[in-house]
């Protein structure tokens, strides 16, 4: 079994490898924002934050280096990379909705077998917000979900049909968990890679959605 920390790190490493050099990437609140600390400067991946930053750099080294006017969408202090810029919220969402963001990396509550994501509301829980998730899933050229494979109580997150309210009618493109990587192909999901230590059988057991399996299944660690 992986610890939560090991799972997170594996998911982030695999997600990072999915990003193309030179691409413009928005990192959703939560697990995705930690990706900013993995970026190798030479790959010139440009991190967009919906509160009005292009060129989000890693977290500041110390509390003294942090600037209350320079925070990411998760309200954590960040830095700016050379060539970065600032703009207002209306312009920032014009970028997102207008299709100018190459990849949105985003968390999930549920993803159904056609790739539809639910990630903003668990009915009955005290949630009073949606944030930028709907715009990001609707507008980004590619949506990459990063999530633990199951909920804390062990229930599958990749399900036949979402029981929670959906985020958008536009399906996601890639799902990365600590156990597997799925790609959407046509109308359905295809298991494309396995997390080290997880068998195909264990994925069937922990996944409610129907999915295809690709011919070759590389393993990621």
């Amino acid at each position: 079994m992986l610890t939560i920390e090991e799972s997170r790190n594996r998911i982030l490493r695999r997600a990072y490898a999915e990003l193309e050099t030179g691409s413009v990437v928005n990192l959703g609140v939560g697990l995705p924002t930690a990706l900013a600390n993995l970026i190798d400067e030479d790959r010139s991946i440009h991190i967009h934050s919906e509160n009005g930053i292009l060129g989000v750099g890693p977290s500041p080294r110390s509390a003294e280096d942090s600037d209350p006017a320079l925070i990411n969408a998760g309200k954590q202090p960040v830095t700016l990379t050379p060539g970065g810029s600032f703009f207002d919220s209306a312009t920032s969402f014009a970028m997102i909705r207008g299709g100018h963001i190459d990849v949105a990396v985003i968390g999930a509550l549920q993803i159904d077998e056609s790739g539809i994501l639910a990630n903003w509301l668990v009915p009955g829980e005290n949630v009073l917000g949606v944030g930028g998730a709907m715009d990001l899933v609707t507008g980004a050229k590619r949506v990459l979900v990063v999530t633990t494979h199951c909920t804390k109580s062990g229930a599958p997150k990749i399900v036949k049909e979402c029981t929670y309210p959906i985020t958008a009618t536009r399906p996601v493109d890639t799902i990365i968990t600590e156990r597997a990587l799925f790609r959407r192909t046509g109308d359905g999901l295809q298991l494309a890679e396995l997390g080290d230590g997880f068998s195909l059988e264990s994925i069937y057991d922990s996944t409610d959605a129907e999915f295809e399996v690709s011919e070759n299944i590389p393993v990621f660690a």
Partner: protein
Amino acid sequence: MSRRPQSEKALSAADAVDKISNGDVMMVGGFGQAGTPLFLLETLAETRTRDLTVISNNLGEQGVGLGRLLLNRQISRAIGSFFTNNPDAVKASNDGEISVELLPQGTLAEAIRAGGAGIPAFYTPTGADTELSRDKEVRAFEGRNYVLERALRADVALIKAGRADELGNLTYDKSARNFNPAMAMAASLVIVEVSEIVPVGHLSPEEIVTPHIFVDHLVESPNADN
């Protein structure tokens, strides 16, 4: 010899918030605490102004900013995108003390921009065929569904800028810009908390983000770096 800049728009925080009336629709800039006019909000929390409809991305944090107005029961309605981070907001909504309208953050930003730009309504793909817009009009263009969203306007906007010149031209500081420029255009009365007021000519014509015609009052923040 440099003179101390004097602006006809400069006002004390108390005099500025005195212009807000019971029942007003009030926009409040900021994302988290960045770009939030905390000094103005703390001053407003000292008044008896109530029944406010607040348009803001967040509803402050517990007991801070709009969170304090909420505890004071000065807010009766809130339109915004993400209030979850203030448990008091969730409780007040559950208890029926405030009514809440949630919008996707991009729709919130665009609706405010539209309000200032004379656009009464626009179509957006965001939220189409989701629960959040189930009561809204949907229309297809080239086979894709879009939601009709109405512009937002307010009686008053409380915003936070970086530097102002004496005329009221504004610059912003990094990601503290966020909702402030659009709100400056979408309210009948615009009160701006600024770090500093500088003489006319000290801001370059190219760096001014909000021209002075959108600004009614300037309030200098007591915290130099706030």
